[in-house]
C-alpha cells in the first residue's frame, strides 16, 4: 500500500557457515557512525540515512554490487554500544551477530565501522565484537574529517594491537573502499588463520575494563583526537539558548507552513494547469462517447486532483530532510523533553513524533529506540495523530477552497497558513492528550531515563536531499498510479451502473444516500461520505474520489474541484471534514505496522476505534458550532 519503506528484498543464504568461505557480511558499529551511508555506497541501495543516532532500527540486506561483489550479501544492523541489549533495535543487531535471529545465519565476516572522530570511546565496542571470533575488518569512518581537524592515528599499529586489518575510509565521499574488496578476497581463501585469538582482550561484559583497554590502545597507537568542533558548540549556544532556542524552534515550524503555502501553492496551481491542458488535449482523440467520460472525467480528474499536491509534499519533505540531516532533530527532542515529561513520556519519543510529519509508518518503526516497552507502546498509539503528509492534499484542497487568502500578520503569516498550522497543532495536542491518558491508565509505568546523544551538526548534502525527494516523489506517483487509479476506476464504473442512471440513482449514489443520515449532522453530503469510505485505504484517496464524483455530476462537471466543493458544502461542513481527517486513522499501512510492532490486533483495533470516535465527535462539534455561532 502506501509504503514509505519499500526496499528490495534479497534472500539470505541459509546453509550453515563454512569457515573460510564468505557469503554474508555484517556492518556493525556504534549508533550514528555511518553504517547506513556505507551500506548505501556498497550496495547501491537507498536506505534511509540521517544525522541522529537510531535511524536504522532493523536489519537491512543488500547485494555488495557497489564494489562488484554481487555474489556477497551485506547486512546493515542498528547501531550498538555493546553486546548487552537494552532496546528493541539493539536486540536485533545482537541477535543477528549471535546467530539467534530466525532466518538469518551468523554472518561470515564483520565490517566494524567506527567513527574516527571519537575513536577512544568507539574502540570500546571492538572488544566484544572481536571476541566473537569472526573475520573482521575495522573501518575508521570519517577519517577525512579527523585528519582535516588535526587528528591522527597509526592504522598499522592499531591493526597489530587488534590482530585484524584496519582501514581509513570516508563513507560519505566513498574513499578507501577498496580495502573492503582486499579484505573479502583475502578472507575468502581457506586456511586463513582466524585472527582475534592471538591478541589480548579485556574481561568481557565489563565496561570499565573495555574502557581501560580502549584507552591503552589509543595511546599506544598514537591516536590524537581531532580538535573538538567549535562550530557545533557555537550553533548550540544559539539553538539551545534559554530564550532563543524555543523561539527559533517555533519560527522554524512557522516558516515551514508559510513556505508550503507561499511557494507550494503557485507551483501546485501551475502543475494543475499543465495536467488539465494535457487532459484537454487528449480528450478529442478519444471521441465523445463513454471512453472519453471514463478516461477524462473519471480517471484523469481523479488522479490529477491528487497529483497536483506533489510540489507541496516535496517541499515538506525537503524541510524534514534538512532537519534530520543537519542534526537539529536531536536538539528539538532536548527542547521538548520537559513537555514530554509532563505527559509521562520520554524526550526521545519526540523524534518519532516529529518524523511522523512525513509518514507514520517509519515513525512507528523508529519507536524501537525507546527502551521502555510501555512508553514505546504509548508512543506507537499516539503517532498517527501527528499530521502526516497524506493529510496534506485534503487540507490544502479544503483550505484553498474555503479560507480567504488574507494576511494575518502582514506578509509573515497568511490566514490559510494559520489555519493549516492550527490543524498541525491540533494533531499534536491530540497526541499529547492521548499519551497522557494512556500513561495514567493502561500503560502506567515509572518514568524511563532520558539518554540522548547529540550528534555534531553537518551540512546536509544536495545529493542526499535530492535522493530523498526523488524517492518520496516516486512513492507518491506510484500511489497515484495504483491505488488512486484503481479506486477512481471502480468509482466511475459504479457511478454509471445501472445504465442510463443519473449519478443520484447509480449504484454509488444509492450507497452514498444510504449512509448520508449518519454523516449529515457533521455537515457532509453523500459524496463526502463515499470519500470517507474510500480513504480508509489511504488518506489522499479522498481527493481523487471527490475529483471523480464531482466530475461525474452534470451540475458540477464544468467547475474546478474547489468551485464544485464551494457549490456543495458549507464552511462548517468543510472545516468538520478537515477536523475529521486530523483525528481519524484512515491508513491501512499504519494499521498493519502497528499490528507488526505490537504483535497483536488488539492495539490497532483500539487505536482505530478510539481515533474514529474522536474524529466523529470533534467534527460534529465543529460543524454545529460554526452553524450556530459563526454564521
Amino acid at each position, binding site marked *: 500500500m502506501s509504503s514509505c519503506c519499500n526496499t528490495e528484498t534479497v534472500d539470505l543464504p541459509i546453509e550453515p557457515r563454512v569457515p573460510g568461505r564468505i557469503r554474508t557480511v555484517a556492518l556493525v558499529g556504534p549508533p550514528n557512525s555511518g553504517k547506513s551511508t556505507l551500506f548505501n555506497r556498497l550496495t547501491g541501495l537507498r536506505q534511509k540515512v540521517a544525522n541522529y543516532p537510531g535511524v536504522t532500527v532493523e536489519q537491512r540486506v543488500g547485494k555488495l554490487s557497489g564494489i562488484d561483489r554481487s555474489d556477497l550479501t551485506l547486512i546493515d544492523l542498528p547501531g550498538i554500544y555493546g553486546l548487552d541489549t537494552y532496546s528493541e533495535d539493539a536486540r536485533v543487531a545482537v541477535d543477528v551477530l549471535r546467530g539467534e535471529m530466525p532466518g538469518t545465519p551468523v554472518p561470515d565476516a564483520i565490517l566494524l565501522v567506527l567513527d574516527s572522530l571519537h575513536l577512544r*570511546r568507539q574502540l570500546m565496542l571492538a572488544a566484544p565484537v572481536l571476541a566473537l571470533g569472526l573475520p573482521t575488518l575495522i573501518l575508521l569512518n570519517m577519517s577525512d574529517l579527523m585528519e582535516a581537524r588535526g587528528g591522527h592515528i597509526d592504522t598499522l599499529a592499531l591493526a597489530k594491537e587488534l590482530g585484524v586489518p584496519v582501514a581509513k575510509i570516508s563513507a560519505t565521499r566513498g574513499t578507501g573502499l577498496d580495502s573492503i574488496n582486499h579484505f573479502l578476497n583475502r578472507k575468502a581463501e581457506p586456511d586463513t588463520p582466524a585472527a582475534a585469538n592471538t591478541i589480548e582482550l579485556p574481561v568481557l561484559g565489563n565496561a570499565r575494563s573495555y574502557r581501560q583497554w580502549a584507552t591503552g590502545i589509543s595511546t599506544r597507537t598514537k591516536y590524537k583526537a581531532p580538535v573538538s568542533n567549535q562550530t557545533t558548540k557555537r550553533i*548550540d549556544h544559539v539553538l539551545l539558548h534559554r530564550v532563543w532556542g524555543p523561539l527559533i524552534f517555533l519560527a522554524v515550524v512557522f516558516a515551514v507552513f508559510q513556505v508550503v503555502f507561499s511557494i507550494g501553492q503557485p507551483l501546485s496551481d501551475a502543475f494543475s494547469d499543465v495536467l488539465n491542458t494535457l487532459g484537454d488535449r487528449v480528450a478529442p482523440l478519444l471521441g465523445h462517447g463513454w471512453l472519453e467520460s471514463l478516461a477524462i472525467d473519471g480517471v484523469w480528474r481523479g488522479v490529477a486532483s491528487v497529483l497536483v499536491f506533489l510540489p507541496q509534499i516535496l517541499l515538506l519533505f525537503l524541510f524534514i530532510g534538512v532537519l534530520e540531516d543537519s542534526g537539529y532533530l536531536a536538539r528539538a527532542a532536548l527542547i521538548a*523533553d520537559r513537555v514530554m515529561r509532563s505527559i509521562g513520556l520520554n524526550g526521545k519519543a519526540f523524534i518519532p513524533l516529529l518524523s511522523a510529519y512525513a509518514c507514520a509508518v517509519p515513525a512507528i518503526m523508529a519507536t524501537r529506540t525507546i527502551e521502555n516497552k510501555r512508553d514505546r507502546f504509548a508512543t506507537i498509539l499516539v503517532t498517527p495523530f501527528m499530521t502526516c503528509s497524506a493529510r496534506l492534499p485534503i487540507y490544502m484542497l479544503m483550505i484553498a477552497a474555503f479560507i480567504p487568502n488574507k494576511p494575518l500578520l502582514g506578509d509573515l503569516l497568511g490566514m490559510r497558513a494559520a489555519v493549516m498550522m492550527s490543524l498541525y497543532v491540533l494533531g499534536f495536542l491530540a497526541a499529547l492528550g492521548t499519551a497522557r491518558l494512556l500513561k495514567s491508565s493502561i500503560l502506567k509505568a515509572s518514568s524511563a*531515563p532520558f539518554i540522548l546523544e547529540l550528534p555534531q551538526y553537518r551540512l546536509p548534502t544536495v545529493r542526499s536531499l535530492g535522493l530523498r525527494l526523488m524517492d518520496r516523489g516516486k512513492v507518491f506517483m506510484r500511489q497515484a498510479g495504483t491505488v488512486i487509479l484503481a479506486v477512481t476506476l471502480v468509482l466511475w464504473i459504479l457511478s454509471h451502473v445501472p445504465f442510463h442512471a443519473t449519478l443520484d440513482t447509480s449504484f454509488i449514489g444509492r450507497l452514498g444516500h444510504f449512509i448520508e443520515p449518519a454523516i449529515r449532522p457533521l455537515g457532509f453530503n453523500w459524496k463526502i461520505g463515499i470519500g470517507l469510505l474510500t480513504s480508509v485505504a489511504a488518506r489522499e484517496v479522498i481527493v481523487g474520489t471527490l475529483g471523480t464524483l464531482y466530475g461525474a455530476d452534470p451540475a458540477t462537471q464544468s467547475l474546478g474541484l474547489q468551485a464544485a466543493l464551494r457549490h456543495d458544502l458549507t464552511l462548517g461542513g468543510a472545516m468538520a471534514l478537515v477536523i475529521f481527517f486530523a483525528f481519524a486513522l484512515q491508513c491501512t499501512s499504519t494499521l498493519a505496522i502497528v499490528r507488526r510492532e505490537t504483535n497483536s490486533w488488539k492495539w490497532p483495533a483500539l487505536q482505530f476505534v478510539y481515533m474514529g470516535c474522536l474524529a466523529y465527535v470533534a467534527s460534529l462539534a465543529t460543524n454545529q458550532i460554526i452553524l450556530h455561532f459563526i454564521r
Partner: protein
Amino acid sequence: MVAIALSSFFGAETEDDFDLSGTWKLSLLSELPIGTTGVVESLDLPGEIQHQLMHMGFVPEARITVVRRAPAGDPTVYSIDGFEVALRRDTAQAIQVREYQTK
C-alpha cells in the same frame, strides 16, 4: 589517596590540560556548575541503564564536562570523550563525581 594515585595514572593516558593534582571533593554530577569538569567516581543506577551509560563511556575515571542546560533548565548536556550526551537531573543525581578545586 588511592583514588588520586589511580586518577593520575589514567590522567596521563587520557586527556590534556586538566590538572588532577589538586584537592577534590565528591559531588553529584547534577550539582556541577556549567563549564566545570569532574571525574566520574561511581554510578548508582538500575542495571540496564547503568550498563548502557557505562558502554557510552560513563565509567569511573572518565572525565566529564558540563556543557549547557536545555532551555527549560533540564536535561543537561554533558561532554564525555569528545561527544555530547543529554541526561535528566534524576539520572545525573545518581552519578558521583570528583570535583577538583582550581588553585
